[in-house]
């Protein structure tokens, strides 16, 4: 859960990028790291715990401080999980303390089964932490739209965005930094709204 430090008026939020292997989760973080506009010193280093072939082994981690929130130190910590099926325990560990999720789906037709399985795996792993997608804000990103064999957005919505509450979804080509910031800004805004409504409820 987010840390709200009343002494230092600091809000720390953890966002996890989840999705099937080779879907573009790490690319999203790399693009945010390379292109985000920050006041000097507000962007941390991108840390990747990856294999020699650049596949995520444990997680990627990028700490950044938000620009537009005045009077507040709001720190976002972005994580990715390893997408490969065998690393499920690792995914569970990274999900600990998660505040918001970005599900990065691969738009290629032949990856639909992997997308659906990964989404189901996310729900299962949240359950082990006594969480559910009803409590954790999330958005969907349909990545790799620049490739030729992509499924229509409506079809991907039908497969992945068919829960009771429809969530925002974005098309993206993360390698060209298209859709990356739109996705990140949406999840942060949903999260901040949630904190405000939770805070108001507590104060009432």
């Amino acid at each position: 859960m987010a840390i709200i430090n009343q002494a230092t008026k600091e809000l720390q939020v953890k966002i996890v990028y989840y999705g099937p292997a080779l879907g573009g989760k790490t690319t999203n973080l790399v693009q945010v790291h390379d292109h985000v506009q920050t006041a000097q010193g507000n962007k941390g280093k991108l840390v990747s715990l990856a294999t020699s072939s650049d596949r995520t082994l444990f997680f990627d981690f990028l700490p950044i401080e938000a620009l537009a929130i005045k009077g507040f130190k709001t720190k976002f910590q972005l994580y990715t999980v390893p997408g490969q099926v065998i690393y499920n325990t690792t995914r569970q560990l990274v999900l600990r303390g998660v505040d918001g999720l970005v599900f990065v789906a691969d738009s290629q037709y032949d990856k639909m089964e992997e997308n659906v399985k990964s989404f189901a795996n996310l729900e299962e792993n949240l359950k082990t932490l006594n969480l559910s997608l009803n409590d954790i804000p999330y958005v969907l990103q349909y990545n790799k739209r620049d490739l030729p064999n992509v499924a229509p957005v409506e079809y991907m919505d039908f497969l992945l965005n068919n829960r009771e509450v429809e969530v925002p979804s974005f098309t993206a080509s993360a390698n060209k930094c298209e859709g990356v910031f739109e996705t990140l800004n949406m999840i942060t805004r949903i999260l901040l709204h949630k904190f405000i409504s939770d805070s108001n409820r507590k104060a009432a």
Partner: protein
Amino acid sequence: MPSLPQLIEEDVQELNRALQDLLVKAEASVALIIDKGGFLISQCGEHISFDTTTLAALSAGSFAATQSIAGIVSETNFTSVYQQGESYSLIVLNVDEFSLLAIVFKAHISVGAVKYFAHGTVKEIATQMKKAQKREPNSVLDLSMLNLADPAPVFRKKKSA
């Protein structure tokens, strides 16, 4: 899901005092209190020379991995992770359900001594966290100061040259 308690100034001061005390006694370089989700809660020492945000995230990840290994070998008592280096060593100790204590110290200092002094610090931190947990959370942080009516995106992409 239970989470770290709301900390007020009194808590942070007490946590910092405990860390400072530990640094003096154990002659350690840096001491951090970390949330198990990877957030840095409090820090003391020569932290200017270290990236403590990343140190906190990686220490929490490393500790979580070790706990999972403990589960696999039916061991419930892996309460610390120790990494011995040539210049600096690191020990991460479990505090309570939500937090960890990470200590960076010069490699020539005995880990036994650091552990001995850290034992008391862990107890002090846990006591303060319990106190914070019990306190009536009547003074919540005023998040209404966050101006979400402002349509400016929270993160902006740099304009390409």
